[in-house]
């Protein structure tokens, strides 16, 4: 395609490149700006007098003698104990991903290997469940959870997030397992393996690419969830996202907006690293459903 006659005219190339630069600024500038501003004092980050203050850190320098300050981070992590929320998020994400992959792999494998009609209906039901906004389920959880005295603790939230994750996990892994030739486990069964042994010794060694992609999305769901975690966790067990939302209520009144800014930057950093390392898997996961359908 790169032959000379097909090259775009200069004006068109200028237009497309200009558009990409515009989009990149649109996509990345808010993050860069907030990262930069998180090392300033509030008067610089929110500046009525002169917006360049946010760049130069005029007031920050006057207060702390240097244009950068870690005061927001200190306030969020030490004073407001944001590290607790970080640890909670770590626990929730780890267990959600592990559990939902374990049971999702078994279920997805079974769906891909069974030729009966009910597999189709199970997938349809999963699709319907996938479309349910999690917040609509929350009012159904509260009453029983209060009754059984399990409200507010991490294990409850983990189980709920695993369940909410299942429909998506099943669809992803189902279509992934369908691309693994059936002959592999059929031949293992001919050699005398049970279905589970065939799965364990033949399928498990080759399934990791699909499982990693699915795991990434499970992680994102658990990490990004706000509706479930903010409703089902008590104050001391909050994960990062509801903790940030709680910051807003208190900090706006106390004038500590920079704590929230620092917390927001801290919560974004892991996602940056994730995209950096797993870009290929994320893209393939996003397109898996689309290109086939």
């Amino acid at each position, binding site marked *: 395609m790169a032959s000379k006659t097909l090259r775009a005219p200069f004006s068109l190339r200028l237009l497309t490149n200009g558009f990409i630069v515009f989009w990149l600024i649109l996509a990345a500038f808010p993050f860069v700006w907030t990262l930069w501003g998180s090392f300033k004092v509030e008067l610089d980050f929110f500046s009525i007098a002169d917006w360049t203050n946010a760049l130069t850190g005029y007031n920050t320098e006057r207060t702390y003698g240097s244009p950068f300050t870690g005061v927001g981070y200190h306030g969020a992590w030490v004073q407001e104990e944001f590290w607790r929320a970080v640890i909670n998020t770590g626990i929730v994400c780890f267990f959600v991903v592990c559990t939902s992959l374990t049971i999702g792999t078994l279920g997805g494998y079974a769906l891909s290997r069974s030729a009966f009609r009910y597999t189709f209906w199970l997938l349809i039901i999963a699709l319907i*469940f996938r479309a349910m906004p999690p917040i609509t389920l929350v009012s159904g959880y509260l009453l029983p959870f209060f009754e059984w005295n399990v409200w507010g603790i991490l294990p409850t939230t983990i189980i709920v997030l695993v369940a909410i994750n299942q429909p998506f996990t099943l669809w992803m892994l189902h279509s992934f397992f369908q691309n693994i030739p059936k002959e592999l486990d059929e031949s293992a069964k001919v050699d005398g393996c049970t279905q589970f042994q065939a799965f364990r010794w033949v399928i498990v060694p080759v399934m990791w690419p699909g499982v990693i992609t699915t795991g990434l999305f499970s992680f994102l769901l658990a990490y990004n969830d706000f509706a479930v975690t903010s409703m089902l966790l008590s104050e001391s067990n909050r994960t990062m996202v509801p903790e940030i939302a709680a910051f807003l209520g208190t900090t706006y009144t106390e004038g500590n907006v920079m704590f929230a800014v620092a917390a927001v930057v801290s919560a974004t950093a892991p*996602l940056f690293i994730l995209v950096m390392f797993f870009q290929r898997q994320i893209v393939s996961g996003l397109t898996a459903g689309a290109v086939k359908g």
Partner: protein
Amino acid sequence: MKHRTFFWFFLPTGLAMLLFIAAPIVSVVLQSVFAPHEPVLITAQTCTPFSCTEETTIDQEATRVLREAKPLGRFVGLDIYFNRGHLATAEVAEAWRTTDSLTAFFRELGDLPFYRAMAFTLTYTFTVTPLLIILGMAIALAVNTLAQKLKGVVIFFSLLPMIVTPLVGSLIMFWMIDNRGVLGNFLSWLVSDPDLSVKASTGLMWVSLIIYGIWHSAPFAFVVFYAGLQTLPEDQIEAAQIDGASRWQQVRYIVVPHLMPLVTFVALIQLMDNFRVFEPIVGFNASAHATSLSWIIFNDLGGETRQLSAAAATSVMTIIGVAILLSPVLVRTWRDFKGKM
């Protein structure tokens, strides 16, 4: 695979979905037709030689017994659905009778929480979805012309708005459009009105929420379309070039029709996702100007008084809305399945 083996393989995930998705839906529907018990009142008459006074007190003991006997509350049928907080049929009928123009009627409707939320949710859903598809398509077409080495970097930055936590993303945006933030400053300089504040204006708030929605979801459309562009039928493009089709004509008559199934896919997914808009309203602190059904549920559930019945009724109506938007997807899946048989 035998039924038995299938059953054991599927049991854990099936059980999880049954207990934590199917059962809560049933429980939500049940809760929405029961209201909390009203306290049992006792009226005692105390008479003095000259007059009698009636005194009403709450019978704590009887109330407690009643609550324990029937923990769900009292059955009220569809009353909650039609009360002022939800469909507000009486208020709507009243407004219809008393107002003399449609504008006045809609203004009255705008004061009712359910219709206020619906107005924003629907506007949001049906403006964000087409715009994000157009933006995503434009980015995909532009990125496709780039050199291979640049593509990776551009895709990395393009993914960020979508991957970032919705609440965090909306906060980042909100701090920028704050009237002391950089974009807010820029806007008021642009229209030379130093008092311009996005937070104070309903119209501007809606626009910023919509812009945020496009910013957040366009990467998804971009990635899907970009993947579709990799499977373009090259022979058709070549044939069109030989026939003298211009660049624009190639895009219009070959590329876009080739991507059409993907456009439908993205549109269906995004309609459902945008219908449940929620986090940006919290992040933008916009509930004074814009609400959505999900936000109403959240608001009812939070705080000291957890209004479970009201939240449940709104939840059921949200589920119905999602079901309507989902039906084309189901029909499509059904047709695919029929095709495979």
